[in-house]
């Protein structure tokens, strides 16, 4: 297809701006990666953005297994697994309960269910800081303060508002006639959910799982407030690692630890991100 010189010029400008913007956003990450691959000698003598003279994974090994956090020098691996043990149950429970909530709010409405739903939605707008004290006291009474279990409970409760909203809005786009037909076919509440509704819910499950996973993995405030010592998630450990100074500041170790802490969410986004966008717009355009 022939293009006018003006159109080509426009394209060039457009791509230039996009590439510059992409570089601008990627440079900090690049600096992190480069720094994490340098030795301390290299860092002391070179520039911030110079390439490593010798690529070494020592900093990664140290960050993972032997860096000092507080008085313990075992790296962030224990805390990384804390996060994993916290995120998986919290994401699954809040997503499944959100699916059930959304199913009820859209297909089994009862007197006052809209009001109930609006109240639940308020949960999306409550700032984390507001509930710190009451939640701390609640966890204390339940006997799960300072534990991974406590964090799972907090994140599940806090996530329900969002997951219920996701699923409810998705299920509203599924025709009610499907549920009616299944009722006449003799199926009850759970059979309809299991056999008819869940099989068509995969896009919204992906959305909910990515959203919850990112929120819970990246959370710092609940982690720092409701965990202690051995139950800290990786975000809190990272902060402590960077703030633990024994003589020299090991930038390469800090950077490696930061990348490790961020890898899971990055991984999830890259692998299933396209489903996320697809799922978010699924209800908007009827297909």
């Amino acid at each position, binding site marked *: 297809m022939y293009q006018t010189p003006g159109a080509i010029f426009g394209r060039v400008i457009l791509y230039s701006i996009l590439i510059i913007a992409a570089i601008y956003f990627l440079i900090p990450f690049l600096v992190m990666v480069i720094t994490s691959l340098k030795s301390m000698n290299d860092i002391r003598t070179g520039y911030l953005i110079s390439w490593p003279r010798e690529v070494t994974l020592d900093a990664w090994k140290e960050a993972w297994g032997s860096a000092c956090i507080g008085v313990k020098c075992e790296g962030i691996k224990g805390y990384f697994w804390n996060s994993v043990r916290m995120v998986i149950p919290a994401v699954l429970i809040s997503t499944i309960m959100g699916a059930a909530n959304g199913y009820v709010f859209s297909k089994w409405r009862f007197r006052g269910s809209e009001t109930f739903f609006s109240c639940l939605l308020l949960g999306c707008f409550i700032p984390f800081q507001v509930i710190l004290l009451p939640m701390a006291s609640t966890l204390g009474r339940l006997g799960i303060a300072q534990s991974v279990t406590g964090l799972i409970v907090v994140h599940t409760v806090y996530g329900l508002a969002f997951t219920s909203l996701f699923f409810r809005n998705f299920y509203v786009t599924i*025709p009610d*006639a*499907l549920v*009616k*037909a*299944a*009722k*006449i*076919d*003799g*199926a009850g509440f759970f*059979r309809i959910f299991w*056999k*008819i509704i869940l*099989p*068509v819910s995969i896009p919204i499950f992906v959305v909910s799982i990515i959203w919850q996973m990112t929120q819970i993995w990246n959370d710092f405030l609940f982690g720092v407030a409701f965990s202690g010592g051995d139950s800290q998630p990786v975000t809190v450990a990272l902060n402590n690692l960077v703030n633990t100074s024994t003589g020299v500041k090991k930038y390469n170790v800090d950077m490696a630890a930061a990348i490790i802490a961020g890898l899971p969410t990055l991984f999830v986004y890259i692998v299933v991100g396209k489903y996320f966008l697809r799922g978010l717009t699924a209800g908007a355009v009827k297909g």
Partner: protein
Amino acid sequence: MASLTITDVNKAFGLVAVLKGINLRIESGELLVLVGPSGCGKSTLLNLIAGLESITSGEIKIGDRVVNNIRPKDRDIAMVFQSYALYPNMKVRQNLAFGLETRRVPAAQIEETIQRVAHTLQISELLDRKPSQLSGGQRQRVAMGRALARDPAVFLFDEPLSNLDAKLRVEMRTEIKLLHQRIKTTIVYVTHDQIEAMTLADRIAIMKDGIIQQFDTPQQIYDNPSNLFVAGFIGSPSMNFIPCRIAKRGQQLGVFLETGNGRSFFLPMEQSSMKLDAWIDREIILGIRPEKISHGFAGQRENPQIHEIEIVVKVLEPTGPDTIVFVDINNKEVTCRANPNAVKHPGEPMTLMIDVSQAILFDPETEERVGA
């Protein structure tokens, strides 16, 4: 198979009464069509029969069993939805089997039923497809197949043809009629299309504003509509409603028709003259079907019910077999059905014959039929 009896049924959503005192009864094997404009309550009534909504007061009986408080699945009914409502994640085979599996029918019997239904509806080659891979007409068949597989006492159809294109709709209409003749199950069929109602029904219930206007056989409803609404709703083109004044000429009661240019024709109304005395010099509405005003009728010379008028043609609409002629009578636009070869051009005068044997008079205030 079962009869269906609906007695004094009311339904209100909050303070809004949607159905007011519905009474219907159809015998086992009959096809009842509920027809009316949107918002008349016909779909709500169907949902009440299905048990998807609860009734406010009254009684619904399927066979000899009152089903007011029985859940949909235990009412022995099956329903075909306007949107088909096929389970999108299941293949056609599983769609047909779902209701049977839920009822714990043995697998061998399910397979047998699927084969039988698929054969009846000619969907055998579609059994392993998903609903998204089917055309509209095929989905329609599968939806009917799902209902057939259950072999219920009563079938409920909720506007099943309105999502199909015009040609397919006519084909499926005939198929539904054939199907009904073959299986002879009681059917309740909801539609807003009066032609569907006329062609399919053993009995029609015409509804408006939550009230049944008339409940009768299609021919009775066409020939003897009980009020203006029913008369205007059934029939295409619809019945002409000509405002007139009852007059007495000699010993005859009748109406005058003004056809323009000062021409006036007297139309005797003999069949109900007994009750028309009270209407002399009062406004009345003459209802007459388009096919009763034509270029001519067989045996018109001898028939005292057929009268001749002179009129100017306004517009012609050829339909092929007939041409619809638009004229003005008493300053009201009137449609007539005439032979294409016998009509004059617009603007020219034409002689039309009016057969008043089935003309109907309506009270313009109550809109009810007069003197029936």
